């Protein structure tokens, strides 16, 4: 496998220039800060100078003393204080000021990512700095066996294919898989000509009975003493939220020990992009067209994972391929929970074909959906309740996300306001439910030194009523 590394990411829109990162860095490292926040082009905006740990580092190439080298395991460009002769040629190699002169020491200083636990990120109060560990996931799992055949016939840029391959790679061969009608069997999981498209037993239940069939399979395995097998579904939102819902609800209520993964692309995409129960308000679909009268779907989506929490399942979680670290951790917990009770993982999956998103922008869409709170990342257990795994505070406006998606192109101001209000309402409800669990570390406060975002307890009257009605 090629190299991929963890990285410190910077989101300029969240930075308010407080300087906590620099203060912490210089305290921890003793000397000048190895990252620099600098004023941006716009008043109140900021930019960052930091070592990007380049893949083809010029600083290393021009060093005459052999003092700089890229570590093959961590990807960090290390600096050897002993070998360095302070000639500063490295600073001529770096176009980002990632290696710069510490005026006090009169030597260069550069970021070493604090051995994989960067202090600046922990100190950042707005979430502008983020430690992304997708690189180590890739390195850890990249070599694991892919349990699908190479040639699945998904659309170009299909996010669901990504989810299937990642999920099965992580879960491994000791599993039995159900893929009810939808894109997943459609692109070939159930195979052709008597051969399956997977390297694990796979079957193709009806759209309506997936959870029931899995219940039976699990019970049989239990009976013969095979308690180690993950009995699971990779189902679409239609087969979960609509036609298959009674079976899912029943299995959840009975606490069947299965792992049910819903890949939610917000509609019946493989049959021609019809609306489903999880299609969001305002979306264009082939059955909610945009014309003189209709302007896309007129109803809100049902929040399926939230409905599952009402079943008091062993485990319920949401995830997005925009945040792989989070997805992988949840896969772990979901598998574990599936040996104890009903385990439900809802993964949001933008569809380049049906949503009119360029295939190159799918992951960007995933990230923006989360960053705007259109999608919230959380998990629930029937013992600990609900907790956010990514802070919903300080989101970007939903319109920024919606504007990147073709199926929302027609939306007018009123519809946009409706979507934003719906998102705010859902987040407020989740915050109520999460009131007992601490928020994840990043983003303790809004950029600009503002107050902490309103706590769940201080919700205004009408919103509270609205939530209560829901």
């Amino acid at each position, binding site marked *: 496998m090629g190299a991929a590394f963890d990285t410190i*990411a*910077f*989101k*300029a829109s969240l930075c308010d220039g407080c300087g906590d990162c620099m203060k912490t860095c210089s305290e921890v490292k003793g000397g000048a800060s190895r990252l*620099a926040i*600098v*004023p*941006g*082009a716009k008043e109140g905006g900021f*930019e*960052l*100078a930091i070592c*990007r740990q380049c893949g083809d580092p*010029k*600083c290393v*190439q*021009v060093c*005459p*003393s*052999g003092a700089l080298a890229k570590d093959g395991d961590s990807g960090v460009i290390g600096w050897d204080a002993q*070998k360095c*002769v*302070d*000639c*500063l*040629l490295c*600073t*001529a*190699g*770096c*176009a*980002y*000021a990632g290696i*710069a*002169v510490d*005026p006090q020491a*009169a030597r260069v200083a550069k970021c070493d990512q604090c051995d994989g636990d960067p202090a600046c990120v922990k100190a950042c109060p707005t979430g502008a700095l983020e430690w992304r560990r997708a690189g180590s996931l890739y390195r850890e799992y990249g070599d694991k066996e892919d349990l699908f055949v190479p040639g699945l016939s998904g659309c170009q840029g299909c996010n669901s294919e990504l989810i299937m391959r990642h999920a099965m790679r992580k879960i491994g061969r000791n599993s039995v898989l159900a893929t009810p009608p939808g894109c997943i069997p459609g692109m070939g999981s159930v195979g052709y000509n008597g051969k399956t498209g997977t390297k694990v037993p796979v079957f193709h239940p009806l759209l309506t009975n997936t959870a029931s069939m899995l219940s039976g399979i699990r019970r049989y395995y239990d009976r013969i003493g095979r308690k180690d097998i993950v009995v699971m579904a990779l189902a679409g939102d239609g087969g979960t939220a609509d036609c298959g819902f009674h079976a899912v609800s029943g299995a959840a209520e009975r606490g069947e020990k299965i792992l049910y993964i819903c890949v939610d692309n917000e509609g019946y995409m493989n049959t021609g992009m019809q609306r489903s129960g999880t299609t969001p308000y305002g979306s264009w679909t082939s059955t909610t067209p945009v014309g003189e009268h209709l302007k896309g779907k007129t109803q809100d989506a049902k929040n399926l994972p939230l409905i599952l929490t009402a079943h008091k399942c062993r485990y319920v979680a949401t995830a997005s391929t925009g945040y792989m670290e989070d997805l992988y951790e949840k896969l772990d917990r979901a598998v574990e929970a599936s040996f104890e009770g009903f385990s439900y993982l809802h993964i949001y999956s933008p569809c380049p074909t049906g949503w009119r998103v360029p295939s190159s922008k799918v992951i960007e869409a995933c990230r923006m959906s989360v960053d705007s709170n259109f999608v919230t990342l959380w998990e629930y257990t029937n013992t600990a309740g609900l907790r956010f795994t990514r802070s919903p505070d300080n989101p970007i406006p939903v319109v920024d996300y919606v504007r990147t998606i073709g199926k929302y192109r027609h939306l007018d101001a009123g519809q946009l306001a409706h979507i934003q209000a719906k998102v705010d309402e859902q987040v407020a409800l989740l915050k109520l439910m999460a009131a007992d669990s601490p928020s994840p570390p990043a983003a303790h406060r809004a950029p600009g030194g503002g107050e902490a975002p309103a706590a769940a307890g201080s919700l205004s009257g009408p919103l509270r009523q609205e939530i209560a009605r829901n």
Partner: protein
Amino acid sequence: MPEAKYLLVGSSHAALEALRSIRQFDPDGAMAMLTQDTHPPYSPTILPYVVSGRSRPEAVLLRDRTFFEANACAFVPNARAVGLDAKAKTVKLESGETWRYQTLLIATGAAPAIPPVKGLDGVKFHVLRSLDDAKGLRSAMGGARSAVVLGAGLVGLHAAENMAEAGLSVTVVEMQGHVLPGYFDAKASERIEAAFAGHGVKLLLGRKVVEAAALDGGHSCRVMLDDGKAVEADLLLVATGVRPAVDWLDGSGVAIDRGVLVDEAMRTSVAGVWAAGDVAQAMDFHTGKPALIGIIPTAVEQGRIAGAGMADDPYRKDYPGGLPVNTYRFFGRVALSIGQATATDGVEVSESDENGYRRIVLADNRLVGYASVDQPFDVGVMGELIRRRVDLSQCKDTFIARPADTGRRLMSEQWR
């Protein structure tokens, strides 16, 4: 006859980078690196630190045997090339051995240029280009009380500082009116000159050595200056510049001006032969004309491009032209320059004497040069602004007032 698909002559920055670049595209094509040196690769730039004792000679080597094994490259030391037969595609060594190549990289760098000074050939003098030179200078320094250095370029000044710090009484003779001409303007140079004077180094600027003679049976020497004065010293270092090492190419048909002439792909005039580094005369970024810019950043970039061409890598990039870059430390202080830092004609110059000295040179609202003393700046950031010809008209005042922050900002915007 030994043979290589890729034959690299020289074992320094340009050749090493070509090796890397070739291996990115062709993991196992037969490769050999020939060098006249007896040591594994090291950088000439490290030599002042060997002279001062800061770096141990065995600790400055840039690659070891494992590296060459891992990269499937035969490393051949003590192999001085003396001739090139471009028709037969062979390189002849001093030992008489002949190597055949499919593609050849000329990366023999530069060698000290010895000025035609009367009597110099009868005097024992030092130069500083190889590890053995550095060891020789270091040991000679130990037994000397005084030194005279010809030339106040990078090499001369580095060595002068080394020797002054070691307690020698040092005199530097420079033809030009200032030290480090070309990199720094007079105001910047004056600060550097003052530092040397402050450390007891005598700078004789605007002076030429016209004659040299051995004294004391060769244990010391005297140099005569063009003003009739004489300087005596135990040690003589000649550092009056370098000349591309092209002697071995005589009669090969490879076109040479002052260095080996190359095109934007680092190809020489002869098919199958590339050149990179100090030996090459490649395009200058500003003038678009062939120029000698003997520094590591250009050697590295040219080496990479040449390697890509030799391996026929379809993603080879054209050489954008070389920019002079200088990061110079003297007595713990810092002087930096990049681009046309001394330009005066047709440019807009902003100088500042606050907290050190800086000189920003703009043309058509774009940065073309930057130099500073005692005020470090991000050389690579400024270099990128120059190379990309970034239009600064929107932020010129801010840039001039706060160049570091503004430069960092501009680069951060390019890539987060």
